[in-house]
């Protein structure tokens, strides 16, 4: 079981969600985060004083899935989230040992389906 985490541009969320659903993944969890990276933030004005907002709004997706689906989900994300511009984001893959569905208590891959 793996967790695929993707940091993407907020306005791509809808597309990515659809791309992931298209490869047969049922669930995912999304959070609003702020990113700091190569993409530079914007300036803001405050009564004639300028300052730079370094953290940019990003969206983090977390999907836990069985190992066989990792490849196709990663590909789907790369395709759907890419704009070719700096700041498109990152995908991280890490191991997950167990998943449990709270409602039923089921565990393992079946909890993800």
């Amino acid at each position, binding site marked *: 079981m793996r967790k695929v985490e993707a940091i993407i541009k907020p*306005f791509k969320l*809808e597309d990515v969600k659809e791309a992931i659903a298209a490869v047969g993944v049922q669930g995912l969890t999304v959070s609003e985060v702020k990113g700091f990276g190569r993409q530079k933030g*914007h*300036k*803001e*004005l405050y009564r004639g004083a*300028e300052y730079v*907002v370094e953290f940019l709004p990003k969206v983090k997706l977390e999907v836990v899935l069985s190992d066989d689906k990792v490849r196709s989900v990663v590909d789907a994300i790369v395709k759907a989230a890419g704009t070719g511009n700096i700041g498109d984001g990152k995908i991280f893959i890490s191991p997950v040992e167990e998943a449990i569905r709270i409602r039923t208590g089921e565990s393992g891959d079946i909890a993800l389906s």
Partner: protein
Amino acid sequence: MGLTLRLRGTSVVRGVRILALLLALAGPMFAAWGQDAADAVDVAAATEEAPTPEAPAIDSGDTAWLLTSTALVLFMTIPGLSLFYGGLVRSKNVLSVLMQCFAITALVTLLWTIYGYSVAFDTTGMEDGTFNLNSLVGGFAHIFLKGVTPDAVTLTIPLSVFVCFQLTFAIITPALIIGAFAERMKFSAVLVFTALWFTFVYAPICHMVWSGPGSLMGSLWGVLDFAGGTVVHINAGIAALVAALLIGKRKGYPTTPMPPHNMTMTVTGAGMLWVGWFGFNAGSAVAANGSAGMAMLVTQIATACAALIWMFIEWFKHGKPSALGTATGAVAGLVAITPASGTVGPMGAIVIGLASGAICFLGATSLKRGLGYDDSLDAFGVHGIGGLVGALLTGIFASTSLGGQVEIDIVTQFIQQLKGSVVTIVYCGVLSFIILKLIDVTIGLRVDEAQETQGLDISLHEEAGYNI
């Protein structure tokens, strides 16, 4: 870095260009300044021959109410309308809306001072019963508010109060239009559009309807427009439709849902509009009397009916009544009762309220979806359509036979109302189109896609609405 600088450079250039355009516009007027200053001594004298020949006395009660009404109508735009509209956009664009309302308020005030009041209300050359150029537009006798001294009187109030009261109408009208192109128009384009549209559309239409004996619609045709159904709402609504068509849809519309980012702002703004509208309609009596009282009463009734009908239609159609629907219905009712508020009775108000609520519901839903334009905040759907409904029904319910206050022949009056509306629609439609096209080919109407995606707040104003 380089990119930033370049962008900034461009903006500066734009800024300069905008100012130049605005000045070019105002330029000829400045010529008058010296002369006006020179004339300053004559001003007191000049007042004697001002719009009010017999120099009647000021009534302090009427004046008190008009001062109050002026405050109420300004309150409708800032903060009223800006909250109503601001809550409806996505959070990345909220400041752009507030900023537009605020800047329009300032800009129109300056233009009104320089020449707007004169172009709208100067009566030089007008004659009762006679059609001439001045039936369409005022002259320059009052540029830089020449003649507006503390002693000048019009009707029973100081002229200064009348000038200020009318100014607040001139402010809110272009501010209403921004609902159509919200979330995608350049700020510079908004300013230039406001300046030109105010000059070439608002001021003349206002003159034709309200400047008194000899004016085309108000006096020669006898169009009834108590508080601005034609001048304000049809006018703004048609400009909004033209703008929505010309500027095109927002990126993602209609597939991506773009729900209001802060409905508490919107409902708050709706409440403020309702309250402020008392100044708009009852203030249009230009007196604190039975006519003002009746105007307030029918305003309240029509608004309530429109809010209720919209709410119940939603309830039936979708299973749930929504706050946005109810608030929008209220605004539709306020719009529709505006031209009628001085002439209809309570029963007319009920009918106008119900009709406008129901018809605007269609305008903001089926019609918009059917025709496929993106009138983002339903400026046309509510003000254009509501204004038309009101203008036409005024021709019916103003009749004493239906509880109204005017002895009219309903059919004749209805036709007159229709005539007034059509002329406004055509004139405003054509001029708005020309103005917008002109801006489009010069400085451009629309922000680029990256700016639209990022949101206008950061990209045009370098500010964020919220850091909570």
